[in-house]
Structures are given as C-alpha cells and as structure tokens.
C-alpha cells in the first residue's frame, strides 16, 4: 500500500453499514468497514519545483523513500505525526492538500541533522523541512512560526551589528510573538543565576543590554548583506510564481 494511502484510513473516510447485502451475502455491521472511494484531482504538479526553489529544498528529487530520515528523526520520536519521509513523498507527487494537513508541525524540525546523517541519497531532509516551512508561510497557508520570528529577529540583529547580544534578541523575540517574558521558569532561572554571580559580572551583563556588542566597521558588510537578502527574496518569489505558471500552461496545452 503506498504510504499516502495508509493515512487515508481516517474516521471521516470510513463507512460502516448497519444493513448491507452484496451479491446476496449479508455484510452488515462493523466488521465490514469500507474506505470511501475517492478521486484525487487536485494535484499541484509544480509543488516539487516550488520547494526546490527555496534554500534547502534543492535535492528533494533524489529521494527514493527508504525512510531513514523518519526512522532517525528526533521529533518523530516524540510526535509520530512528524514524518519527513511522508512529506517528501507528498511533495514529489504533488498532493498539496494532504501536506497541508500537517502544516502546523513541519516548522518544529529541530535541525539535529540525524536525517541528513542517515540519508543514503544526500537529500538533506533537514533543508527540505526548512524549505517546506518557508513555502507554507510564503503561500499564506500558515502564519509565521515562532521559529521563523526568531530567525528573523536574530538575522536582523546580525546584519545590523555583526554580533548577537542574547538578552536583546530574547526580548525582541518575546515581544514579536506576544509572549510575556516573566514566565515562572524564566524567573526561577534568573533567580538561580543571581545566587552565584558576583556584582561586577552582573553590572557588565546589565550594561550589555544598553551598549550592545558590535563588530566595528560593519556598515559596508551590513549594506551588502541586506542587498543580498532582498535580491534573493525577489528571486525566490519569482521562481515560485514561474513554477506555477509553467505547470498551468502545460496542463492547458494538454
């Protein structure tokens, strides 16, 4: 049974008949459960190319579905619905609607690279997970994930100053994701940290929040990087639109 068909055994697709006779044989009752017949017509044939156009997704076409990625996956071990092999399959055959069922968990990849380590085909599944989360956000299927917010806050600070000052990054991240900073475990952590710290270091850490560390003579690098980011964004946007356009045209011609 192909991998995507297994997942079709869902309560809403199952049919049981209290009274059913087929060819004169009584098959009434729960034991004769059927999967509702279906016709899949909403393939997005451009899906694989769209993912491949985003950073990390370049090698998705190499996959031959051995399942080593899912087998080694850190997140799969705590959430069986997190299934990189399955998503790669869906993307390659273009079953967008099926992929969208899992749209809210794909960003949870922790980038441990166990999949990349295990993959015999150098698909770089970790990259494919990143590309897929980007794709979901670009297409408006999901709002920006907390992880994406964090990446953006972090990258903005580096482009601007060359270095990361952690407390500033954390504060900006919490405010951008509308979370309170004063969570019970955060307070407990700071309390324990304070118990051992000398005053001098505390002052230094306090100062760092006002005078953020920065790389000197950074302005040219900063401008060059910002220009590059904008350029890439425009290029990817174009590739996404183009991939879709070509497929639509091909379908139209056929």
């Amino acid at each position: 049974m192909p991998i995507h068909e297994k997942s079709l055994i869902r309560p809403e697709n199952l049919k049981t008949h209290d009274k059913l006779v087929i060819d004169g044989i009584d098959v009434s009752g729960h034991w004769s459960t059927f999967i509702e017949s279906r016709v899949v017509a909403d393939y997005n044939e451009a899906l694989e190319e769209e993912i491949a156009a985003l950073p990390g997704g370049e090698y998705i076409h190499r996959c031959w579905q051995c399942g080593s990625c899912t087998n080694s996956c850190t997140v799969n071990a705590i959430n069986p619905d997190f299934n990189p092999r399955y998503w790669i399959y869906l993307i390659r055959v273009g079953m967008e609607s099926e992929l969208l069922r899992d749209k809210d968990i794909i960003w949870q990849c922790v980038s441990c690279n166990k999949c990349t380590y295990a993959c015999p085909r150098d698909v770089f599944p970790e990259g494919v997970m990143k590309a897929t989360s980007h794709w979901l956000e670009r297409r408006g299927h999901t709002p920006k994930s907390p992880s994406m917010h964090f990446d953006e806050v972090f990258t903005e600070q580096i482009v601007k100053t060359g270095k990361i000052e952690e407390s500033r990054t954390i504060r900006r991240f919490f405010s951008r994701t509308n979370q309170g900073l004063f969570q019970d475990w955060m307070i407990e952590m700071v309390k324990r940290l304070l118990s051992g710290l000398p005053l001098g270091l505390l002052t230094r850490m306090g100062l760092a929040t006002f005078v953020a560390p920065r790389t000197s003579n950074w302005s040219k690098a900063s401008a060059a990087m910002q220009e590059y980011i904008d350029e890439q964004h425009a290029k990817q946007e174009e590739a996404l639109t183009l991939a879709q356009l070509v497929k639509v045209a091909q379908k139209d011609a056929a």
Partner: protein
Amino acid sequence: MTTKEKYKKVAYYPGCALEGTGHAYNRSTKAVGKALGLDLVEVKNWNCCGAMEVKNVDPKLQTYLSSRVMSVAANEMDMDVVMAPCNGCYHNLKKAEYDLKHDKESAAVVDKLSQKAGHKTYESGQVETIHALDWIKETIGEDGLRDRVRNSLKGIRVANYYGCMYTRPRHIFPEKDAGPGSESTSKPHFMDDLLAAAGAENVEFPLKTACCGGAHTLSDSDTSTKLVLNILKAAKLAGADVIATECPTCHTGLEMHQIRAEKRLGEKVDIKILYFTQLLGMALGLKPRKVGVHENISDSRRFLKEKGLA
C-alpha cells in the same frame, strides 16, 4: 610542523554565546589554556558565525559570515588554525569551509559580499578550524594531562554529552571517522578520553549525540523540555553525577529545561551540568571560581566541595 606544535598557538574565536550565557565556558577555556601553556590569540573584531538562524534565512549568507571570521584570522592575523569552543561556531566554520570548496555558487556569493564589505575573500584551505576538544587532545593529550593533574576527578561519574553540531552532518568533518586516533561521528570519544585522563569515571551514555532541542529552545519550549528531560534522565540512569558539556547552547539548554521540567512537568532530575573545561581546569588545580562554576545556573558548588575539588 607537527599538529601538536601547530595547535599550540591558535586564533581563538569565542563567538557571541561565550560573551553572554556561555561566559563560564569562555572563562574556563582561557583558564585551561593558560594552565597548559597554550597560546590563544582572539580573532580581531570578529562577527557572528551566522548560527542556525541565519542559515535558516539563507545558507549562503551564513557561509559569508563564517568566511569573514576565517578571512580575518588568515589575512589580517596570519594564523593558520582557528579554535572555536562553541559547537555552533565550530560547525558553521566547518560548513563554510566545505561549501566554499564544493559549491561554486556559494563561493561566488562570498566573493561578492567580501568585496563589497571591503575585506579579502577567504579562500578555502587558508585556515583549519578545530574544536576545543581537538586543541587539548592534540597538544597535550591524555598522557600530558595525566602528568599535570593535581586534583584528580576520581569518584566523579560523568556522562559526556556532545550534542548535534559536533558530529553532524558528517560530510563537513572530513577528518573524523578517519581511522585510529580520529574522532568518531557515531560514538565521539575525545571528551571521554580527556576527562578519563583527568581521573573521571565515564559512564556508558547512549545519548551522547542526542538533540537537546536547542534550535527551538524558546520558540518551541515544550519540545525542548521533553528532549532535555530524556537526556537528563538517561544520564542519571546511566549512573552519572555530572553531565559534561562542550557547547554553550546545549549547556544552557540543559540548565534551562532542567528548571522548566521541574516547574511545568513536576519532574526533578538531580544531576550537575558542567563544561568539560571546568572539570579539566579543576583537575589541573584551578579553583572553581577561576573556571566560572559560580556563573552556571545549575549549582554544583556543594557537590564539588564534597568531591574535594573546591
């Protein structure tokens, strides 16, 4: 020149975390270097390596950021080895080195950005990036350490935790899995070797290279807490008193989620968390304060006193 001589004076790249939450790792690495007579010259006016976050936004941008650090070390300081104690920095410099060698597009982007930024483009092969573990293992080695131990770690049972970035993905570490004496990507042992030489009893720890969820420590804290709890419990079950770390993100992640597991899940795992450089420093006779034990969130001061190290 032998590797041993080559590594005696290295360009030191602490990275952002070691100036913040990982300050104890910075302090202890420098203190251990000093105690061992090794020379650390900090990379001038360094910048962030790009970390996982910039890589997620654009991998080539991260390659550029890491390449600038190596360019400064090679072209402005005339150094041929960069030592990065942070797994993230170490990983990213290695990844940049690999990409520049194998991916023409990456090399072109790096060249363009370097020119616009006004510094020399880093050419792959100009420097060798090593981890703090390689640095001590190659220069001093187990025998050298054994001779220098003044305060044996005897009676301390250690689970050595290496995390993800030190060994994965394997293609960016061509020197690993290269026969006798080299580091293993599936079962790393350099930290085990060094701490054993300092007298510690290493426990058989199956989660050496498991993930602590550091990438989402704040953006998906529940996942991170589960992953950390696994690591803490496994170490405890293996009989360890201490988890030795070699990465500021892992270290802080373990400390943070140890508390979070206690607060949110009511699961308390009593195990100490120390940087391997802190343990080595104390074995070399340094006082706990000298290696920043008071800067850790996980308080191990009483434990160390009991073991005769404080």
